[in-house]
């Protein structure tokens, strides 16, 4: 099995708007994929499609090479922590853990209890009285206890404090080191991604403007500081400028190359943040996405 998730021209329309248009991407198994985009861009819709809560309007999604999202086999292997960490409408935390065990053939009850203890979440506590961060941690606990092959998280860090964030990321990376777990998480904060993510999918207005391995993406982009004309002269037709700065100002411009340029001292390497911002601000021109 090489790919955990395969999206082929997936689009999703709702009554009055199109949330996603023709998204094509492959998420390899074992990867850590960051799904980035502004609010309302379509990240949650994409995650709902991957986890089987929604079906695509057009196109196809396959999990683990041959499974349909939402099929019983897929459900057993995919764990989803949706935004705000929903759990069952149970009364207590302990109830929630028992119920999660009832709902899954594969469930490590003891490990879930241990993790909750480590986080100082009392089993007798009422779920409705948990803080946002605690509820998120509970949802994550229940997901991890299922030992999923694919873990999908919708903005998991937003309700966590910085220490909890770092601890969680460390824990998830530990899981990746040990097993073949694939992780997809959505984020609208770009700063921390470069450390943990191996792949990036950037969604802007429902389109996947970037989808690929981060190292390769960084290899194929450079920054040039200057006017638009100068930039054009320097890349000499081998690249296309992504950044949307005013043509006459001396601004840093992110340039995409089909073939990684060598030996040109006027280009500087680009960081993931530069790249993401450039694409997110870039007006859609149908230039297609960089898919690897």
């Amino acid at each position, binding site marked *: 099995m090489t790919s955990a998730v395969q999206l082929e021209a997936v689009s999703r329309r709702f009554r009055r708007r199109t949330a996603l248009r023709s998204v094509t991407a492959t998420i390899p198994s074992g990867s850590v994929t960051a799904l980035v985009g502004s609010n309302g861009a379509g990240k949650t819709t994409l995650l709902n499609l991957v986890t089987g809560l929604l079906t695509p309007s057009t196109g196809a999604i396959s999990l683990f090479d041959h499974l349909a999202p939402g099929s019983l*086999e897929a459900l057993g292997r995919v764990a989803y922590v949706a935004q705000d960490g929903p759990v069952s409408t149970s009364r207590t935390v302990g109830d929630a853990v028992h119920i999660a065990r009832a709902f899954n*053939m594969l469930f490590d009850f003891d490990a879930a209890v241990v993790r909750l203890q480590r986080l100082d979440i009392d089993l007798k506590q009422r779920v409705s009285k948990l803080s946002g961060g605690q509820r998120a941690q509970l949802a994550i606990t229940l997901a991890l206890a299922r030992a999923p092959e694919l873990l999908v998280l919708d903005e998991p860090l937003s309700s966590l404090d910085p220490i909890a964030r770092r601890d969680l990321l460390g824990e998830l990376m530990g899981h990746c080191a040990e097993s073949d777990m694939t992780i997809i998480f959505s984020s609208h904060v770009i700063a921390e991604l470069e450390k943990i993510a191996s792949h990036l999918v950037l969604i802007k207005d429902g389109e996947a403007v970037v989808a690929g391995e981060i190292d390769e993406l960084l290899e194929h982009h450079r920054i040039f500081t200057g006017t638009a004309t100068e930039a054009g002269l320097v890349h000499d037709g081998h690249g296309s400028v992504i950044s949307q700065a005013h043509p006459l100002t001396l601004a840093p411009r992110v340039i995409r190359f089909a073939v990684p340029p060598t030996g040109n001292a006027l280009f500087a390497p680009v960081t993931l943040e530069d790249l993401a911002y450039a694409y997110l601000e870039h007006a859609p021109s149908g230039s297609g996405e960089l898919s690897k």
Partner: protein
Amino acid sequence: MTATLTPTTAVPTTMTTWLPRLVPGILRLHRTALTSVAVIYLAFTAVALTVVHQVGHPRAVILAGQFNGTLYSVSTYVFYLPVLVAVFIGAPMFARPLETGTFRFAWTQGVGRRRLVATTLIVFVFELTVLSIPLGIVLSRLWFDLSPQFGGVWVNHHFFTNPWMLAYSSVIGLLVGALLGVVFRRVLTTLAATTAMMIAIYLWATMVRFFQETLLWFAQRMPSSYAGVPLRNGNYLAHYDYSSVNLYFTDRFGHVLSYPTLSQSQKLALNQDNASELRRYGLHVWQGSLFHAQFHGFLMMWIGFGVVTVIALVVAIFAFIGGNDRLLLRRRRP
């Protein structure tokens, strides 16, 4: 937390594998609702049993025209139990997880949404059926013993509070609430819609004429098997004892008459247990085989009305939770 668990994805899991694991979880998840239902139904059964004790010998009661106030109130409340079940148990069942978003948890678990919904419904239907039967038996027995002279009202009470009617009306109430919950996906809206729907159903059922005409339609098509006084269309007047409360009277044109509209002589003929007299007084009697409690035709009640409704509601629920995601998921944030 390590990946030391043995994946069972290669092993096909069927409902029988899942049920023993799943049912305790459902019981725990719906603990409050299930307990409330049990408490209410059992409480009513207990109260009704005390009334049985007080009522005494059946015949004496009929002749004395005694009427027991407690039984009347108990029956009245029990009559409306399906509404309670629909509004407080059925309506929030799926509306709450759909509104709060916790369905995103439940429907991405290994069990899958269909098995989850099916098992939840099965658990509640089972409980309602099992609890309805003793309650219904006690109440029916009591009503059988009372005079039919209380007119249309008692017909409704008796009709709804015999075991099978109570079971399937409770179940239908539950399913109506559950279905509306899946349709509207918001608790308050569902509560309002369920209340309205139950009022509509009850109005239709208690407008004696309409309901009886409808049930008559079924009755005319159901076979009967008691010999006795032959009626139109091959139906027969049943054995004329206290089961007579199940009979529908029509005039010679086939229009249903309610008891209060009978003339004195007609009522006398009825009370005198004289079947052959009835026709003399212009009463044409339809065998209420559909609703005759002691008749093995009680099965007809299910087939004729209850089962079809129950199946239709369940199918509708699954249609709404199934493929048409447009109705289920909408954007939550601007």
